């Protein structure tokens, strides 16, 4: 039917129905039927009853008289049909009246017309309303054409006016100022089951207000009220507990907060990592796609990752999986291993290895050379770890079951090249995998986790050998977004050990927090990386890469003093292995420096045994030294006061020498520091002295020293 074809048009202008309905001269039978129904539904007034018999009469007359304007009728019937869609329920009522044919047609038409827009229907129904009143008046088609056209115009005008009014009312209701629900309203709500759409609407309204607070707020309503209402709404809508919501609100601005929450509601994307020991990504994709997998490379940042959009069979059930060609792994789990960048023939420790995704990735990167100590504390997770390691064909592992804190004792301090610590955490970044976290985590959990993480990180740092030729790195990562578990732990490690942060090598992700509420972290913490589900489409994650500067453990826990002392000790420990006579000078210098630090702070107990041990290791003779500038006599004065008493061999001459050596060494150490680690390094701490002049001097000092050392070396070689 041609009519049906045209019905697909979204909205016929109100003209047509108005015109058609107005011209009762030859309304098609269906049209006549539909009008009364509309009236019945919309009006529910007495008019419909009076009009119906009239219309019926008209119908009969219409059937007898074929109209002149057939084309008009056709279009009119279309309009009628569309108008009739609003009265879809009225289809049954069709049956009450006249023709069977028209009944069938009207039923069919109604179904088709149902797809049309409701607003058009609304208009048309309004029109039908108004027309209904008029329909009784016009009787003849062949009558006054002018009158007809006037009527048409009037109707059209009315329809437009009504439409405009409606629009206005709609706009007005939307631009109404958002008001916080009053206490009574809240009480009412509390009694009813939660009205989710309402909550959602309120949440988005409050977020809108908060993001433009000065303009959109209610008068005299403090921000706190809005935030509290937001909290309660989020808690009931998304299902979080109080603590988590508080922390999330503190961490994210309002708009981003909603993004985060929405992201956590979604399903996490499923990712695979190709096992490069057995296959290539290309070949794996070629093997999986015929099995019904819809795959894509995971992104530019990885050459081994694949993301699975959907699959006919589970990714864990394919032959390739059983043969160890790939591993099911979250995208975020690639990151710490990429940051670690293990090289071939290195010694690596993975302190919390289960279930083994990262360990096997390390093994693949190392091509089965070197050695990986895969440690897992939890016995129950060991078999999963073992299964994965052996399935993937990683052969260079030693799997053990220790508490991570004990590993330095077992494997030896300063014994490995790199350590990966994917620390046990509260897992707040993986809420979309485990929604139970929303309600089960509390401040106590975070504190406990942070405590364990700090201990583990210190153990990891102790395991690493700072003097390793290729390594000396620790990568710390968690699948949590909480600051006490991430930045705070790294900050603690920076204070307690001679380490510094280095860039992770990941060019995406947000830098970590340097300051957060009342906390102030080390400025280098912006080298850490944070990942979020709403930004990166992976688990909430945190990655930090530390480089160990020296194997000695600082005595003081003051960050500034430790760093200065660290620089000194860094030099001393490096030369330790050379066993040069220069060392003892350094050693002497070191305790002096520390003493000074201690004196300055007047707080810590100096651990003389430590220093004593250091000193006694080295040989005691003092070599010749080129003349050096003696700077900062004030400092020397401070230094020499203390150490004189503790130094085992105090000699007038030696004291003087010590002074020079100290200062020289100090200068050397600082210049060394700047030379080795770049102008901006030294753990991000500022030098107290002005830079330019002294820097030049130091460089000269360093050059002198280097020449002297080179001389010494060549001498030694000649002797040997």
């Amino acid at each position: 039917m041609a009519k049906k074809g045209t019905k697909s048009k979204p909205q016929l202008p109100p003209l047509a129905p108005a015109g058609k309905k107005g011209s009762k001269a030859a309304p098609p039978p269906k049209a006549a039927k539909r009008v009364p129904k509309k009236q019945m539904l919309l009006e529910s007034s007495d008019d419909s009853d009076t009009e119906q018999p009239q219309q019926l009469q008209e119908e009969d007359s219409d059937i007898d008289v074929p109209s002149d304007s057939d084309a008009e009728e056709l279009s009119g019937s279309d309009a009628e049909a569309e108008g009739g869609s609003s009265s879809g329920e009225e289809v049954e009522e069709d049956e009450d009246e006249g023709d069977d044919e028209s009944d069938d047609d009207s039923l069919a038409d109604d179904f088709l017309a149902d797809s049309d827009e409701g607003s058009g229907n609304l208009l048309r129904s309004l029109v039908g309303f108004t027309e209904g009143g008029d329909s009784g008046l016009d009787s003849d088609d062949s009558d006054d054409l002018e009158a007809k056209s006037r009527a048409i115009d009037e109707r059209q005008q009315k329809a437009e006016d009504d439409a405009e009014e409606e629009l206005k009312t709609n706009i007005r209701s939307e631009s109404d100022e958002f008001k916080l629900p009053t206490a009574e309203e809240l009480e009412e709500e509390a009694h009813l089951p939660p009205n989710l759409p309402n909550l959602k609407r309120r949440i988005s309204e409050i977020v809108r207000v908060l993001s433009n607070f000065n303009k959109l707020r209610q008068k005299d309503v403090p921000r706190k009220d809005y935030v509290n209402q937001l909290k309660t709404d989020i808690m009931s809508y998304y299902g979080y507990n109080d603590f988590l919501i508080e922390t999330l609100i503190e961490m994210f601005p309002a708009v981003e907060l909603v993004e985060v929450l929405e992201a956590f509601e979604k399903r996490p994307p499923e990712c695979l990592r190709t096992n490069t020991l057995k296959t290539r990504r290309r070949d794996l994709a070629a093997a999986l796609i015929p099995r019904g997998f819809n795959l894509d490379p995971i992104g530019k940042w990885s050459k081994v990752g694949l993301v699975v959009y959907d699959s006919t069979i589970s990714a864990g059930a394919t032959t390739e999986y059983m043969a160890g060609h790939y591993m099911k792994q979250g995208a975020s789990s690639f990151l710490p291993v990429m940051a670690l960048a293990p090289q071939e023939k290195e010694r690596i420790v993975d302190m919390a290895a289960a279930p083994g995704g990262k360990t096997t990735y390390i093994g693949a990167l190392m091509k089965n050379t070197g050695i990986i100590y895969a440690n897992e504390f939890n016995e129950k997770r060991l078999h999963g770890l073992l299964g994965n390691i052996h399935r993937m064909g990683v052969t260079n592992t030693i799997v053990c079951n220790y508490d991570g804190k004990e590993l330095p004792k077992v494997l030896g301090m300063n014994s490995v090249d790199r350590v990966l610590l994917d620390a046990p955490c509260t897992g707040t970044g993986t809420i979309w995998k485990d929604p139970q976290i929303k309600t089960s985590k509390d401040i106590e959990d975070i504190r406990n986790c942070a405590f364990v993480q700090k201990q583990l990180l210190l153990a990891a740092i102790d395991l690493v050998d700072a003097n390793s030729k290729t390594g000396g790195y620790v990568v710390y990562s968690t699948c949590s977004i909480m600051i006490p578990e991430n930045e705070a732990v790294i900050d603690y490690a920076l204070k307690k050990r001679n380490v510094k942060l280095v860039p992770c090598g990941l060019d995406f992700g947000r830098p970590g927090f340097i300051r957060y509420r009342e906390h102030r972290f080390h400025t280098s913490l912006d080298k850490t990386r944070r990942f979020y589900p709403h930004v990166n489409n992976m688990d909430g994650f945190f990655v930090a890469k530390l480089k160990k500067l020296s194997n000695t453990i600082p005595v003081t826990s003051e960050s500034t003093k430790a760093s200065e002392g660290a620089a000194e000790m860094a030099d001393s420990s490096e030369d330790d292995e050379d066993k040069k006579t220069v060392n003892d000078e350094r050693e002497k210098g070191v305790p002096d420096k520390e003493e000074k630090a201690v004196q300055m702070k007047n707080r810590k107990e100096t651990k003389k045994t430590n220093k004593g041990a250091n000193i006694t290791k080295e040989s005691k003779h003092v070599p010749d030294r080129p003349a050096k500038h003696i700077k900062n006599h004030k400092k020397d004065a401070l230094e020499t006061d203390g150490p004189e008493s503790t130094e085992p061999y105090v000699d007038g001459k030696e004291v003087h020498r010590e002074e020079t050596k100290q200062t020289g060494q100090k200068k050397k150490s600082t210049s060394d520091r700047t030379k080795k680690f770049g102008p901006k390094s030294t753990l991000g701490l500022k030098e107290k002295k002005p830079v330019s002049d002294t820097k030049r001097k130091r460089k000269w000092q360093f050059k002198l020293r280097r020449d002297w050392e080179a001389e010494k070396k060549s001498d030694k070689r000649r002797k040997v």
Partner: protein
Amino acid sequence: MRPLDEKETTQVFEKLFKFTGPNLKHLLERPAVEGPDPEPGRYCLRLHRNRVYYASEALVRRATAVARPCLAAVGTPIGKFTHHGSFHLTVHALDLLAAHARRRVWLKPDTERSFLFGNSVPKSSLARITENTKAGDGVVVMSMADVPLGFGIAARSAQDCRKADTNAVVVLHQADAGEYLRKEEELM
């Protein structure tokens, strides 16, 4: 963790010999890849808690630092000694065997699943078999894409396979890759 004694070594070698034949020497005498030393030495077998591990000497040396109750695995496990002292190869040896075995059997694509569920291989699943297989030889079962699926013992020689019935068992199942999913506890 201790080296194997005479009896145990013979048992292990016997089982391996079925698969590798004279290649067995090569298995133990090839230069090792693992280990952080520039020359990690050769491979050796060690016994730890009734399981036999195949690892390079460098690895083994370092594993001595780990306490016995805490050590879970070194290198690759190849098999275990049962309670009464017989030795069985486990699926973890698959990679090793696949690299060194002489006889292989290829399965038709649709029939891989059956083998991976632990069933023996009937003639109908057989696509190819190494020419001079004898009955009782160890064979590695591969898929048509040359992916090792498992291993077993040939029930018939290659010639007999041709004459055999479609449902006759050709390879007796010993281990398959599906065990990684089915028997997760197997390594503990």
